[in-house]
């Protein structure tokens, strides 16, 4: 039996809307390294799910997220995102993939010379959206993240929590199917962090799949969402309504 046919039996439709992210026996070893950054990860995250990705530094969280963004290709196995086999995606198709994924980082990554409005609008401008749409959608999104009155501020005039809200607005403004957050509360104090995670939860309730890598035990324990724990590149726990530690 040929390999694709076998595959079709196990996953009748890998492009189904149910599995929005699917890792199929995925391993990743970086060039020039012997130890695998990820080894034999096999899991799927369904549409509309909220999943925490936990583990110590170097456990493979970042690699996991970067494989979803197709910043890297897996060394072994396949990664499906939004119905596309990323190992078969052509490089010219990448922008289309990325438009379906919003990304938030620990260090916000806002453009310092642009106002809050311009930072959010930038994400739409550069994918060729009309000025009319931008004028409508950006204020809406700023309102959603609670910054309706700060559109003309520069990032440096905002607190860390506010800056992260801008980054979330930018990631969400195009209404992606998936939102990836890599330690979004890593630079924030606990009270602010809770606000950020509540915002992500709210976005998740609007039917966006959220994957959040974090070190923050309090938040994970509070939210009681799915917890995927990685250790030294291996999957050690995948628990619905989990907590940070055992």
């Amino acid at each position: 039996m040929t390999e694709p046919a076998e595959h079709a039996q196990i996953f009748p439709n890998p492009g189904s809307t149910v599995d929005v992210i699917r890792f199929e026996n995925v391993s990743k070893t970086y060039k020039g390294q012997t130890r695998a950054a990820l080894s034999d990860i096999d899991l799927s995250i369904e549409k509309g799910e909220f999943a925490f990705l936990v583990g110590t530094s170097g456990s493979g969280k970042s690699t996991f997220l970067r494989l979803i963004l197709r910043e890297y290709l897996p060394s072994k196995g396949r990664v499906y995102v939004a119905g596309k086999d990323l190992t078969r995606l052509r490089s010219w198709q990448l922008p289309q993939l990325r438009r379906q994924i919003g990304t938030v980082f620990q260090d916000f990554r806002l453009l310092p010379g642009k106002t809050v409005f311009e930072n959010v609008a930038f994400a739409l401008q550069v994918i060729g959206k009309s000025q009319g749409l931008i004028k409508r959608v950006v204020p809406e999104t700023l309102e959603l993240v609670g910054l309706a009155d700060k559109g003309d501020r520069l990032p440096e005039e905002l607190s860390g929590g506010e800056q992260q809200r801008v980054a979330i607005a930018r990631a969400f403004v195009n209404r992606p199917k998936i939102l990836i957050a890599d330690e979004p509360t890593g630079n924030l104090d606990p009270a602010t962090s809770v606000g950020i995670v509540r915002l992500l939860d709210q976005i998740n309730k609007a039917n966006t799949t959220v994957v959040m890598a974090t070190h923050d035990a309090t938040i994970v324990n509070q939210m009681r969402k799915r917890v995927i724990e990685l250790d030294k590149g291996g999957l050690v726990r995948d628990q619905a309504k989990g907590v940070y530690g055992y």
Partner: protein
Amino acid sequence: MRHVLRETFSGLKRNTSMVLAVIVTMWVSLTLFGIGLLAAEQVDLVKDRWYDRIEISIFLCVKDSTNSNCETGVDTSQADKDAIEAALRANPEVADVFYESKAEMWEEFKKLYADSPILAEMTVDQMQDSFRVKLVNPEEYMGVVTAVSGMKGVEKVQDLHQYLDPVFNWLNIARMGTLGLSALLLIAAALQIGNTVALAAFSRRREIGIMRLVGASNWYIMLPFLLESLLAALAGVVLACGSLAALEKFIIVDRAKEELPSINWIDWPQVQVSMFWLLVVGVVLSVIPTIIGTRRFLKV
């Protein structure tokens, strides 16, 4: 599109000195390149014209010839003349053969030197019988020369190539030198554009990073850089074309054509062709380094 244009102009403003450097390098190197092209055209024009008129003259023996092909004290015999003419006519490189007798040559000589005191000292017997040969291809002459120069009754084979070839060789070296020098300068200009673009892309790496993250196409990200270097290169092309036009107008049309009208000088059509090549080279040399310079920042 508005975003792209805004980015292009802010880029041009931000790197004014670099852009000016690119324009000047492009200008100088393209002008030199254009001069090289025109020089090549000019050499070809002159060569065609001169070589077309070249015939090989085969001078036959006279009484006091000392050449070993000649019998002392007598002119070339009719039998030898026939043999030489037959050999010439049989040669595939020969287009036509004329016989010019002493008497005919004397008439010609008298016409040429009508006002000269030399004429008084010359007689018809100092002239020589000769064959004049027209070639199929003026550049292919060695075959004929070697075929007849050893024949009995031939005193001397004279062809102008031996005088013209060194001239054209030097002209060729000069034009190769111009083109080579302009090639070096053009490479420098291309590298300069590559560097400028890489620096500009580096200074905008945050924006580029975010553009890639939110799914802007590579084409969209690259376009401002491409337009920027294209505009700089086009400015260089325009200046270089202007320089060539000035050269044609002020040196060729106004001076050279007036002072040396007997030579075929390059004209506006040739200048236009050269300008077209400047445009092609300018565009290629700005687009390719830009693509290479930004590629690193667009890698996924």
